[in-house]
């Protein structure tokens, strides 16, 4: 599996250092690298024969800062990891700390976590599809529709957590605040409206001949390589692996909901695109059930200290199924108020491992589409 990728790389390099090659450095400022990402691409005509990603333009030392601050102080920084999905990053971190310190979470808080995480997934997937279409050259229309729906979800986030993007909502042992009056109903309204948007998206894009021609058979990630390269989330599932941490780890209260995990068979950009669409439909189902079932009760374990929180020495790795893939936190505690080692397992970075294999032999216009279909966010890639 690795050998094939390697040989393909060699083959292209052995293709001769003749003239007609063009070395292009895409990024760090490029409209389709989704931030400050850079790819050094070698082209023959318009065909990619080599591609080297260059990282670090947004390396803002998240892990170092976290090792110098308290456990609680890192929570707002996790918002800024994946700035589309602050709530799932919150959750992953809270989960890791709860494992580290052995904390239990009240049931209502678990439901609130599921609801906010699935809402996050909805807006992340919608925006990802918008960005990918933007990379395909659609003049912003799909993105506008995605952001139109995203704003509705952000309104919910703001009235629940106080901030549109940087929610800083979860705490060790629960959530910071209970839903304000009328929030559940408002969320039900937004979720109820969402399928209309999905239908619109599907009509606009799913059977569009140009979209199909641009994405089908492009950027294929074979099943074995996907597993071996530790791809996760929709990228892994599009390659035919039905692996969803919500099902495998059964964290939170996900085992109480009836949802399915869509799987692609081709592993190309179209599969990754469509899987997100199908996942959104499943998320809507989870949300409807969760908003129906949510019990009354406290939202945080009142015994957990906010200040001077010092878990006993030990380590823990906690992970959840984020919208972009497996987001995990690895923490080592030495018994003091700040973690001895704090590590983020960034799905965006690791999903890029096989980027070169996916891009070789494709056109330069495909590179941006493949990158868009992986769905990266630089805050998380570089941290």
């Amino acid at each position: 599996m690795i050998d094939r990728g390697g040989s393909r790389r060699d083959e292209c390099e052995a293709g001769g250092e003749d003239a007609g090659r063009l070395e292009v450095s895409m990024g760090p400022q490029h409209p389709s690298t989704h931030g400050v990402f850079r790819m050094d691409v070698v082209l023959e005509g318009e065909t990619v024969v080599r591609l080297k990603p260059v990282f670090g333009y947004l390396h803002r030392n998240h892990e170092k800062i976290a090792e110098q601050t308290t456990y609680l102080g890192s929570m707002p920084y996790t918002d800024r990891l994946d700035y589309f999905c602050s709530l799932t990053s919150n959750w992953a971190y809270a989960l890791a700390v709860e494992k580290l310190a052995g904390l239990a979470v009240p049931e209502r808080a678990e439901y609130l976590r599921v609801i906010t995480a699935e809402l996050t997934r909805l807006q992340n997937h919608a925006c990802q599809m918008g960005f990918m279409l933007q990379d395909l050259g659609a003049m912003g229309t799909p993105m506008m529709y995605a952001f139109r729906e995203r704003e509705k979800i952000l309104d919910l986030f703001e009235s629940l957590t106080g901030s549109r993007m940087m929610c800083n909502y979860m705490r060790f042992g629960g959530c910071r605040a209970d839903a304000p009056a009328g929030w559940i109903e408002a969320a039900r309204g937004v979720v109820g409206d969402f399928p209309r948007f999905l239908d619109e998206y599907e009509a606009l894009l799913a059977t569009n001949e140009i979209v199909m021609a641009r994405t089908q058979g492009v950027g294929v990630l074979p099943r074995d390589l996907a597993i071996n390269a530790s791809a996760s989330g929709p990228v892994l599932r599009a390659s035919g692996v039905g692996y969803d941490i919500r099902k495998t780890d059964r964290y939170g209260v996900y085992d109480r909901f009836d949802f399915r995990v869509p799987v692609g068979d081709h592993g190309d950009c179209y599969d990754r695109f469509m899987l997100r669409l199908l996942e959104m439909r499943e998320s809507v189902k989870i949300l409807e059930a969760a908003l129906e079932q949510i019990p009354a009760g406290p939202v945080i374990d009142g015994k957990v200290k906010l200040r001077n929180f010092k878990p006993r020495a030990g380590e823990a790795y906690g992970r959840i199924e984020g919208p972009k893939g497996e987001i995990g936190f690895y923490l080592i505690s030495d018994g003091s108020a700040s973690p001895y080692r704090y590590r983020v397992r960034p799905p965006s970075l690791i999903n890029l491992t096989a980027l070169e294999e996916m891009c070789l032999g494709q056109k330069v216009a495909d590179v941006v589409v493949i990158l868009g279909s992986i769905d990266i966010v630089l805050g998380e890639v570089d941290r």
Partner: protein
Amino acid sequence: MSVEGAGLIRGFIETGRNLVGSYVDPRRWVTVQYPEERRATPENSRVYPFLVYDGADPEEGLRCVSCKICEKECPPQCIYIVPAQDERGRPRKHPAIFDIDISVCMSCQICVEVCPFDSIKMDQAYAWDREDRFGGLLLHKADLARPNRYYRELHPAEARVVDEHLARERELRESGVRAAVRASLPGSGEPGGGT
């Protein structure tokens, strides 16, 4: 069974529907034409912290006792506090300097959560654009002080809880003092303390 080209046509219908819909369908007309139109921010919304004072005097009424907990807990370390001193040079329970650098603040409201005295709360004013970074974005005590009335307007539900809590504490403190005074009186058998 689909016909090639139908996907394109379906797309045109969808955009066409939005084009027409933006004139007739309020669900497809989502623009809030800021600054003429403004959406009300939800009660929980937060931007930068401010300091609450009781009574009429923003200086003396400050609830802040300069305990420096928020300064210590602030993740980006953007709060700077110097306690005031009385005439004999002993620290008073009052800040002499209370600065927040809003060019650093990340609006996480951890200071609000850790404050045991309910003295720092989150404001909702977001328009802080300044041409001058150095003077304009460092907020001092006088810029930060807001009356409790303001807090009640911004966060009514939260303020109600806080006010009740503070009132109860005050009551307890006062009854505790009264009890202690009574206990110190000769001939009184009542136990002291305000639990």
